[in-house]
């Protein structure tokens, strides 16, 4: 492996090197060197000093004072002109770029409001509405539904230790689920795969169904998880349809698997053709095919294992391989002791 520590040590201390290429002349001729700043505005002309209050900082305070002063005493250039700058109604439109190329922190720490929170803090006036489109088609699109009335539990991988689950249930499903339960409560059961196959329950989380979504934290990276929602009371539990899809949380750190296999893929070969060839019966050597098969296994949920998804939102139609304590029927089964 590459000794990156050593390399970093060798290069990190290197200061700016003198350019070896002769700098070309600046486009349009060289601009003069910086000189002492002088007031840029001529008498009666617009001032170059900041005129709008940034959110924070000394510059903001100064600019804010200047703005307030101008608001009290409009100058000759402003007289007769109706519009005045309003306080920020929305974040600076540059905020998208700043957040994207410099990060979320940069947007938060910008000298003028670039987040909605900063705008809220800076604003003293009611929010201005954007102009309505003229002559536009009123589509009357309404709003998104609260529920689609499906029975679904969907698992999404957020990071190596966090699974996000959301669910949706038909009213009839919920009615039947709660029916006859004495002081019942809802639980999320989290299952992780076992190396030899099968599942183990690794977490039971009490939660409110009304929350509609849940983050399950502190799971082990690199394992495949799925979830179920159970309605339970002292005597029984009921599995709400449907169990979630299974999803792998990413592993972290260097893999313990060290297996230096290389493949030669010529540029002239179409990958789809190459794909077909590595499958059993193709021209590739057995060891290469075995390696690719293992890679696919490491992928765990590589394309193809999911199958199509038109059949319904969320998890599989039935609980896979019957984890301990999980009823095979959505409505049956006694509570696990």
């Amino acid at each position, binding site marked *: *492996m*590459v000794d990156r520590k050593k*390399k*970093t040590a060798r290069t990190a201390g*290197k200061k*700016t*090197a003198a*350019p*070896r*290429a002769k*700098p070309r002349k*600046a486009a349009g001729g060289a601009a003069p*060197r*910086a000189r002492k700043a*002088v007031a*840029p*505005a001529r008498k009666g002309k*617009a*001032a*170059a000093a900041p005129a*709008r209050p940034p959110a924070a900082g000394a510059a903001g305070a100064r600019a804010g004072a200047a703005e307030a002063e101008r608001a009290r005493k409009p100058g000759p*250039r402003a007289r007769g*002109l109706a519009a005045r*700058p309003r306080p920020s109604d*929305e974040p600076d*439109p540059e*905020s*998208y*770029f700043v*957040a*994207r*190329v410099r990060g979320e*922190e940069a947007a938060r720490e910008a*000298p003028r409001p670039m*987040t*909605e929170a900063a705008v809220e803090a800076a604003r003293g006036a009611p929010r201005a509405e954007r102009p309505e*489109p003229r002559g536009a088609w009123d589509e009357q*699109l309404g709003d998104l539904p609260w529920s689609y009335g499906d029975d679904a539990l*969907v698992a*999404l*991988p957020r*990071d190596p230790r966090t699974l996000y689950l*959301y669910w949706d249930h038909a009213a009839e499903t919920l009615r039947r689920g709660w029916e006859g339960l004495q002081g019942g409560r809802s639980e999320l059961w989290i299952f992780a795969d076992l190396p030899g196959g099968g599942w183990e329950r690794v977490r039971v989380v009490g939660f409110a169904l009304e929350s509609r*979504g849940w983050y399950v934290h502190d799971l082990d990276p*690199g394992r495949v998880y799925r979830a179920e929602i159970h309605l339970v009371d002292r005597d029984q539990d009921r599995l709400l349809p449907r169990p979630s899809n299974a999803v*792998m949380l*990413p592993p*972290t750190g*260097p893999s313990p698997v*060290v297996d*230096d*296999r290389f*493949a030669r893929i010529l*540029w002239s070969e179409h*990958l*789809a053709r190459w*794909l077909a060839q590595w499958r059993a019966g193709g021209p590739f050597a057995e060891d290469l095919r075995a390696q690719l098969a293992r890679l*696919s296994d490491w992928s765990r*949920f*590589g394309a193809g294992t999911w199958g199509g998804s038109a059949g319904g939102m969320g998890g599989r139609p039935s609980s896979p391989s019957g984890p301990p304590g999980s009823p095979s029927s959505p409505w049956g089964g006694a509570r696990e002791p």
Partner: protein
Amino acid sequence: MNREPLGYLSLHLHAHLPFVRHPEFEEFLEEDWLYEAITETYLPLLRVFDRAADEGIPFRLSLTMSPPLVAMLRDDLLVQRYARRLDRLCELADRETHRTRGDPTFHPLAQHYQREFGELRALFHDRYRRDLVAAFRRLEEAGRLELTTCGATHGFLPLMQMFPEAARAQVAVAVAHHRRHFGRDPAGIWLPECGYYPGVDQYLAEQNIRFFFVDTHGITDATPRPRYGVYAPIYTPTGPAAFGRDAESSMQVWSAEHGYPGDPDYREFYRDIGWDLDYEYVRDHVQPTGQRKNVGIKYFRITGKGAHKEPYDPARARERAAQHAGNFMYNREKQIEHLASRMGGVRPIVVAPYDAELYGHWWYEGPTFIDFLIRKVAYDQKVFRLATPGEYLRENPEQQLATPPMSSWGAGGYAGVWLDGSNDWIYRHLHKAAERMIALARDYREPAPLERRALDQAARELLLAQSSDWAFIMKTGTMVEYAIRRTKEHLLRFTRLHDQLRAGRIDEGWLSHVEGKDNIFPEIDFAVYRPA
């Protein structure tokens, strides 16, 4: 005697903007993203590339042209609006030249902008004939750029992995769009947000996409452990190669603390005359609502961390950009020499990907930095050469087999940016729409012409709703209202189309309206969602 280079440097610029087009408004704030990026990034980069190509500089870079960006750059309405915006910018620069006359500090700066905008306008109209996509295409045909595609609408694929047809469609639609605009298949793809999950490589292989990019841990945490770390790509199980971002070269440009763009001599991003000058003077150039905004003329340099700013000196900044290019090159030389000595004859590749809009828009001198860098690399050193990922793979077809983990280049390295309390509400709706779209594609084998139009538009609306930009904006708390509105509008239009199709009552008038408004991907075929 020429010495064979010890390794490669692969510079990749990811050019992308979400699809923002509002014909229903005369002016629309978020369309500024495109106009600003054209003036400050795309035109300046094209100028650098074309000048170097004209002079015979042997440079090679790769560049993402995301489908939404390509669609906007080719949209007549947006191009017209941009041309008008550029005219007004030139007028403002003229006014500034007049206003600052006699001022020894700011008048030369005003003249600098007057010249610059005039030159960009000439490039836009005369050299590029208002078609920047064709300009990038010519550079690819000349062997200077390798253009890669992206997800069709920059959808974050790991969070749609339970709907393989949806992930596949993001790739397939993008490839068809790329082929239509660039006349060839893309050799590579920028997975949106570098979002990889095991299995997505199959959809790339189906389209013969040969490479993609992942963040550093996408390689270092791969299974089996990659022998050469990020300094060689790995072949994923279905064949496409994954190139990993080099943290060291990235930090030199990205880092807020140590990155070049923070140099005191460089132009200060926030001090723009749209905010600095008297309101009445700039009111015709700020937002229609009356709010101030950047107009693109900035007179100060970063100077330091405090509020005090000194006037900007373009010549001094240019000199600094040359120094930084030299420094960047020197560090790559040392890095590649070191790596090559430890890789047993394998030539390392250092992959340095950046958001294209960092160059020029945020870092004003960024295009100049690239200009100096490609010239210096060509003439001032022999340790490495610039190469694109495709070129590297053609020369080095033998690579290790491994599977990257799910990963992204967002904060935290996984899906946390696009899945948190601010935006997790969108997924139940996005997934439901994907499920319905797949079912429509399955059920409508031979649609009538009007049904086909509705189905194709439904596919467009779903794709537009899936853009990762909306979730990103919700997370960062910036233009949240707009992001929510866009997500909802596309989902609601999709839902209405779905319901009308299922009910057998398509409102053709409304459909025409929506086709005109969300007009991306005119070539789309909804059948791309059909289950295998």
